């Protein structure tokens, strides 16, 4: 988060991940030429360009762009509660970096990424694309400051369902600090529409542990209401309620096959991304094995 530019931040995370993984997790078949590369032992001889070999007596591998078959819609919570942060950056910053990283990663491997921001309703919507300049547009959108509004998950997801007609992946990045009674219903709706749902639950460390020690007037960022709280007294109840809230979400996700990632803001993004990708691979493997069975 020390890097100011969101684009650069995302790039650093993705590059690091790329190097760490050594291997692209996806190898789709190629239809569109990308570049030539000298053949090294172990490369699949299917990809050797014979015409070049005939002309120049050199073995070259012809690389192709992977075919785009994934449409990922990044859905970012832009409510005021996302403006909270105790580590020098806010949850909104973290969410934006996460979204930019995901978009960058997906677009680098040829998938289309779109962006939707919401608070008490859908604010902005960029359909999933994979065109030159789309990432920049997406990042510009992500850098826009959050609007002053509360969170209404139910309304937002309902509106989103209307917007996303084509099936694809939906990455919902939110702190989910809103009543979740209707969340399960909305998740079920999106699942029924054939979308692949991933939920990134972003929370600040101070929210998770409630690490306050002095009595003070606590002001709700979304509603503006103030309440005098003695943390010593209130902590226990707070943690209990938060855990219940998380459990509710977790249960709803499990029930509707939603991939749930809990993301405290002090957790490195590489880790989150790695977890995400691992989970994707596991899911893919699971699907393959299920089909095989």
């Amino acid at each position, binding site marked *: 988060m020390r890097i100011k530019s969101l684009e650069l931040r995302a790039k650093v995370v993705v590059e690091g991940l790329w190097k760490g993984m050594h291997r692209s997790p996806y190898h789709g078949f190629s239809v569109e030429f990308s570049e030539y590369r000298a053949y090294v032992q172990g490369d699949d001889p299917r990809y050797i360009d014979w015409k070049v070999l005939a002309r120049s007596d050199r073995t070259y591998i012809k690389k192709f762009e992977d075919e785009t078959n994934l449409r990922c819609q990044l859905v970012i919570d832009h409510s005021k*509660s*996302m*403006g*909270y942060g105790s580590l020098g950056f806010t*949850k909104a910053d973290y969410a934006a970096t996460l979204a930019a990283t995901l978009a960058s990663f997906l677009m680098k491997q040829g998938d289309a990424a779109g962006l939707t921001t919401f608070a008490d309703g859908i604010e902005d919507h960029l359909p999933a694309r994979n065109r030159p300049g789309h990432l920049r547009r997406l990042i510009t959108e992500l850098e826009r400051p959050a609007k002053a509004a509360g969170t209404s998950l139910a309304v937002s997801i309902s509106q989103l369902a209307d917007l996303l007609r084509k099936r694809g992946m939906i990455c919902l990045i939110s*702190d989910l*600090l*809103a*009543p979740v009674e209707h969340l399960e219903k909305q998740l079920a709706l999106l699942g029924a529409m054939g979308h692949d749902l991933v939920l990134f639950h972003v929370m*600040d460390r101070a*929210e998770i542990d409630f690490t*306050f020690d*002095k*009595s*003070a*007037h*606590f*002001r*709700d*960022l*979304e*509603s503006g*209401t*103030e*309440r*005098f*709280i*003695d943390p010593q*007294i*209130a902590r226990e*109840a*707070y943690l209990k*309620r*938060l855990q219940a*809230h998380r459990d509710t979400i977790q249960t709803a996700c499990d029930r509707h096959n939603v991939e749930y990632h809990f993301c405290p803001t002090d957790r490195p993004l590489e880790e989150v991304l790695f977890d995400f990708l691992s989970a994707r691979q596991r899911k893919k493997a699971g699907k393959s094995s299920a089909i095989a069975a």
Partner: protein
Amino acid sequence: MNWLFPLYLAGAAAIIAPILLHLRRRPPQDRVEFSSLLFLDAQTPVPVSKRRLENWLLLLLRCLALILLALMFARPFLRSESAASTSPDRATLILIDGSASMRREDLWKRAAAEANRAARDSKITDRVAVAVFDRKLMPLWSFEEDRTTAASRVAEIATRLGSASPSWSGTLLDRALIDAIALFDSSTASLKKRILLISDLQEGTHLDALRSIAWPSDLSLQVQRLDVATVDNFSVALAASEEDRSADAPVRIRLSNTRDSQLRDFKLAWQDAPQSDSISAQIPPGASRILSAPPNSTRATSLTLSGDKHDFDNRVFIAPPQPRTVRIHFLGDDATRQQASSPLYYLARALQPTATLAPQLAASPVLPAQSPDILFVSGVTPGAETQPRIRDFLRRGGFLVHVVTSPADAGFIQAITGAASIAITAGKEDEDYRMLAEVKTGHPLLKPFADPKLRDFTKLRFWKHRVIQGMGASGPLETLATFDNGQPAIVSARIDKGTLILLASGWHPGDSQLALSTKFVPLLYGWLAAAGFSHDPAATLFVGDDLPLDAAQSHVVTSPDGATQTLKPGEVFIATQVGLHQVQAGVNRQIIAVNLPPDEGRVLPLEPQKLADYGVKLAAAADTDAAPSAAEQQRLSAVETEQRQHGWWWILVALLAVLLLETALAGRSRHSAAAAQTA
């Protein structure tokens, strides 16, 4: 310890407030922004009070400050000293303003009534003196008279005040107060001294001289200001005249309106002049304007302003033009007056009368019996029988201009100056014309050419000149100007009181272009000025000024009210009235205008406190009652003792020290609290 206002001590009870405030727990003011209160319980109750005091040192200082404040307002003093210093008898000098501004409404009557009341209210053992002042102090009833005839004090003061009246003079309160201090003689040494000033205390009052003295600590001044119904007033005064000095030059007037005045419209007119000789206009409040007086077709001598209620300062007197006569004699034939080639012809035409000077030019080959003021000699050499008279004329202060025309003049010059080596020779005939090369324009005799604009002598040509030789460096003769061949052109000498000017070339066309040049008339009038006939107009005179009289002559002065006073030589006449004064000195009669001092027209009242700014010790308000009761007397003495001891002042110092300490301590504790919070 006694208290002047003990009720204020109750104010010390206010210390309960800081104690309560220290006991009260300040609800935490910290505000924390949190993402959501979704999982937080209802509000925790805010604690209100503490069981024990915190910051007791701060509390102590705050209580102490409140107690000191109450003590200060209660005005403490020590009774023992007060009893010792109190004296029942007073020495009061009643000082009445008698300046021109007291002519407004019934101010003078009220002032006299106040003075009479003060005299009546004083005890028989008190000492009372009365004095009236304007530009100077005039005692009416002295402490010495009061000491010897105290019983008849009231009647005597009333009689003397009845015969007095306000003057036309300005108000020099500073001088009057300084002189009044000296009126308290040794008989009043053991008494409580005070001056009771009864005045309108107008803005134009002079106070500056009060800064030059140290006001006696045992003398207090009680001011009884008399106010009028309205202070709105126009005032008019003469303004400095412009360069135009002719008799018909317009008179310039300075017109002022008081601040916040309701008046706007005024009318300025010459006395008894027709309607056409007046100006009707407006002047805003607080403004001062200089304007030209209306045309004076009737040759009136006073301008009158109308439009306000107070007319004491609404007249300006202007003396009619009275050019001074200058008797000038030309030693030569009067018949040449009409001959364009003769020097007299040009002299007669150059010496024209002006607004201030009336030259009378006479011409004859012999010196007249009555010595002229200025003597011109050109073309002739005074004979041996005339020379002693001319020498005598010069020694008595005469002014002689001699054009050297022949070598025979050397003997005449030698006889007058005593310089035996003087020789005159004719200049070379075949020579080209000469011009002036070096002119001492700084010399008093060539004063008109001191202005660099008038120093161009290059158009002035001398066809013929004589050579004056043998002057010597140490002789009485001094060269004022030389020709371009280095020979002297104008030479002067002081002979006793008189002045001699020698010209090496004449001004008539036969000798030079001087008479036809622009330099001639200024040169002549410069010589007239050097002879004591200044062209400058007389200074404006105000009431209280000395009339400009010739100390060598006796005069008869007729005041505006018709009173006549004969003055011996050397005696002075101080103007006490506004108006035209006639001064007769021998055959000469001069009219001198005396006006009201302009400051007297500034009638807005001053606050008595203004006097305190000049170091005057003002009496306390409680000190004003003339005959207090016993209880009142005791209270008054307490007031005075308290004022002398200044106990409250020390408490104030202590209070400030406590407050400083409290501020420092509070700042420190706040800082440490903030540091702890940051940590």
